[in-house]
């Protein structure tokens, strides 16, 4: 026998249920509706994988003989090689040792890819997505975060990394890249200077900071990558995806040698991903967005741990 919801008397549970549980459910629903309306296929790729994507500063959590994924990127790109044209996925990702106000070793990532698009097209997708989410979850076009009303509809300001660094840190990382100085200046000088009342895009990163992005035509020192900041908080990362198998292998090998210098774990190159690139992936763009951070922003909270069960 099934009972209708009205028959179940559980006042205690209702009082105890944290508000973010319902808002998260609405948020996930809004994301699904957005992509379904645009003919995206929702996909589910493995969480436990033989080799993680190789990035200089991202460490994978092991799981027996395997690893927990740090991102679904390589598997999703394999689906593009198999003929998928528009795909999205929401699910858990894991990064070892990342714990802070905006980090948790386990978090929910939204990633989407579409073919015949570049990183500029992905800005339009992202803007439409944020607007659709707010409309469905709260019926508004703005939200309040830490006392500031954030308008999401006006034109999103795009600033190049060269320009913001010249303006606030006095040097151009795309000309003379210094990874150490880049990270510290980004955190100490750039991020605090970003506007808090509207989204802003930082784009065109030094080539060294985008292991999976295509380089700008005619500018071998700049990668077609952007990061979305809302309220000074980094929310999403996008690439015009690198689809050249030879260059991709070189990047992975270079990254592995740098990891070795830093004494970090060595990972094998994901040969099935390289094979997929050899088979051929059309030009495409992709975005990775932190769902916990978006929920935290929309609910005006301080830490991602406030929107996850412990």
């Amino acid at each position: 026998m099934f009972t209708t919801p009205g028959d179940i008397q559980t006042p205690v549970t209702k009082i105890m249920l944290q508000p973010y549980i319902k808002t998260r459910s609405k948020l996930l629903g809004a994301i699904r509706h957005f992509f379904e309306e645009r003919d995206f296929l929702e996909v589910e790729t493995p969480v436990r994988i033989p080799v993680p994507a190789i990035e200089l500063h991202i460490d994978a959590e092991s799981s027996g003989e395997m690893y927990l994924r740090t991102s679904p990127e390589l598997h999703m790109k394999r689906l593009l090689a198999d003929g998928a044209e528009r795909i999205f996925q929401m699910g858990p990702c894991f990064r070892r040792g990342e714990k802070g106000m905006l980090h948790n070793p386990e978090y929910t990532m939204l990633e989407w890819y579409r073919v015949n698009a570049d990183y500029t097209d992905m800005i339009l997708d992202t803007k439409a997505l944020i607007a659709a989410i707010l409309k469905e979850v709260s019926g508004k076009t703005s939200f309040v975060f830490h006392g500031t009303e954030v308008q999401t509809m006006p034109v999103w300001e795009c600033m190049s990394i060269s320009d913001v660094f010249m303006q606030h840190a006095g040097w151009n990382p795309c000309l003379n890249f210094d990874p150490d100085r880049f990270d510290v200046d980004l955190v100490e000088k750039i991020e605090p200077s970003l506007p808090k009342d509207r989204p802003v895009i930082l784009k065109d990163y030094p080539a060294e900071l985008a292991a999976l992005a295509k380089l700008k035509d005619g500018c071998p020192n700049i990668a077609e990558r952007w990061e979305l900041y809302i309220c000074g908080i980094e929310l999403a990362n996008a690439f015009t995806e690198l689809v050249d198998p030879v260059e991709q292998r070189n990047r992975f090998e270079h990254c592995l040698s740098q990891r070795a210098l830093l004494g970090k774990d060595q990972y094998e190159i994901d040969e099935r991903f390289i094979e997929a690139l050899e088979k051929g992936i059309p030009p495409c763009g992709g975005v990775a967005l932190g769902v916990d951070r978006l929920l935290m922003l929309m609910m005006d909270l301080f830490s991602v741990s406030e929107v996850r069960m412990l």
Partner: protein
Amino acid sequence: MYGASDLRKGLKIEIDGAPYVITEFNFVKPGKGQALYNCKLKNMITGATMTKTYRSNDKMDKPELAERTLRFSYPDGDHMVFLDENYEQVSISNSVLGRLRHFLVEDISVDVLFHNGQPIEVTLPNFVEKEIIVTEPGAKGNTATNVLKPAQIEGGYEIQVPLFVNQGDIVRMDTRTGEYVDRVRR
């Protein structure tokens, strides 16, 4: 030496010869970038605050800090003289004691933090008893505690007390706020 993994709120580190305490600590990691540790620090001598970002391979000096319990003996010019457990005299300058020097009473035990052998911070018991030496005569029968008047305690430090407190009364003071708490006896 401390490493980045030791950093946490409350940790004391040494920068350019001065002891600092970490008052806020946050893990940050820009996209694709290295892990960084954002700290707000307070200079334990001057009270000045600053922020500093550490990388995961940075090392921090450990300050040489020692805490000792001393007993107050007598004032001497611009400093106060205390005795340690071996009855050795230890002088602490009024500039280190600040307002706390007014709340010392004979034989009171205080906790003193030393940095490289120099006293930098003194902690008194939360409450001390002091005699009122000057105040306007008390309004008899007025037991209101929300109407206050100025009064001087031994040593001349001025506090605010309720109207019923008289000259010669012993009052209890909170050494953390420097304020009157209650009257102990007339």
